[in-house]
């Protein structure tokens, strides 16, 4: 057996972590957030349900934290090996290339901050994560804006990344297929975006 090139394994792993555990978690997260629209009781019950899942810490580390850390770490490496040129070649897809990198960086910063405000604050200051706590955060305009901008970045990164995965694994090859896949990915991103934003705005009310 020939040696499988390390760069190939690392790149495909970056792709797999993005569209399997991370995208799946993102969808789950937006569905959970959607309970906010049903009111504090429903949302708190949802949190209760999730935090009582068996092996929840194990799943959080193995299926969420580690994949995100790997995806982000290798993502930063990808950012370093690229050289944006959208100002010289201002084509839509080239802008998307740049946006994918910027939104990736913003998303990572946002995730760290979000984690500090939720799990971090619970651990450090004993502030339990629930409807009231999230509403308290969203009533600070600066935080609300940061969350709104970050959710936009996350959803762009998700949709454009998913589309890239479809091309990167050769699932779609012809121009028509790529276009249709692009619309589907865009629509998926937009749906999650609407879900996320409506949850944030409900909290801020």
């Amino acid at each position, binding site marked *: 057996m020939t040696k499988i090139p390390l760069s190939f394994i690392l790149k495909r792993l970056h792709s797999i972590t993005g569209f399997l555990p991370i995208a799946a978690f993102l969808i789950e997260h937006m569905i959970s957030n959607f309970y906010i629209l049903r009111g504090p009781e429903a949302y708190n019950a949802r949190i209760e349900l999730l935090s009582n899942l068996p092996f929840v810490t194990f799943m959080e580390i193995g299926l969420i934290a580690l994949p995100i850390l790997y995806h982000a770490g290798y993502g930063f490496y990808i950012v370093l090996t690229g050289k944006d040129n959208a100002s010289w070649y201002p084509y839509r897809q*080239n802008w998307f290339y740049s946006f994918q990198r910027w939104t990736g960086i913003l998303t990572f910063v946002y995730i760290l901050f979000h984690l500090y405000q939720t799990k971090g604050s619970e651990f450090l200051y004993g502030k339990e994560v629930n409807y009231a706590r999230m509403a308290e955060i969203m009533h600070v305009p600066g935080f609300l804006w940061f969350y709104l901008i970050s959710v936009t970045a996350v959803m762009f990164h998700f949709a454009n990344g998913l589309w890239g995965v479809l091309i990167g694994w050769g*699932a779609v090859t012809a121009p028509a297929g790529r276009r249709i896949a692009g619309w589907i990915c865009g629509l998926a991103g937009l749906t999650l975006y609407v879900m996320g934003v409506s949850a944030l705005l409900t909290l801020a009310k």
Partner: protein
Amino acid sequence: MTTGNRIIKLKVKRQECPQAKPRWEEFHMPYRPYMNIVICLREIQKDPRTSDGKLTTPVVWECGCLEEVCGVCTMLVNGKVRQACSALVDELGDEITLEPMTKFPIVRDLVVDRSRLFASLKRVRAWIPFNSAKDIGPGPHITPQQQQKDYVLSTCFSCGSCLEACPQVNERSNFIGAMPVNQARLFNDHPLGKPDAVKRLRALVEDGGIEDCGNAQNCVRSCPKHIPLVDSLAEMNRQITRSLFRLFHD
């Protein structure tokens, strides 16, 4: 055959040798109908004087076919990569900047060393692996449909535009760019090229191969022959995924 007193201002980025510092020089010349960049550069050769009248060395550049099929006059015209021979002044305006390509080692002025393109063709085995003095019979039949499809892929003349426009090709990465990927597709498509198909795929997944593609798709926008390079990248990705389990078996 000058028309009025319209003056074309040509700003050229010049560099004596790889070690020298680049500098800009401006040249003025009267406009002529149907002027292209090659004519402008020849105009400079006649009397190499900068716009302030100072005598200088003639600008060094390469050109071969003069009909956009050899690739050697590829350079940055007004910041965008293209062939000087097919760059018409009428479409460019009266102030034009010329720079050498940035993704290849510079030789002098507008001349770069594009030998990495040839190296990558060798890497992906962009040839038919049959070479026999004996008569081995007629070749396989290729349908007109496939001929038409492959003809477009075969029009690549290794100019390097797709590498120049690619954000993933730069001094911090060793990405081979879209051009050799398209050639691998062409020869994997050919019935006589098929025996080496897996070898080509393996060459594409080596370090700096197709995995480094960032999906910016500038390649397809910059290709002078409008080769569907994104289709080629996606198609080779598909072939790699399909043969993932036999790719490293032997």
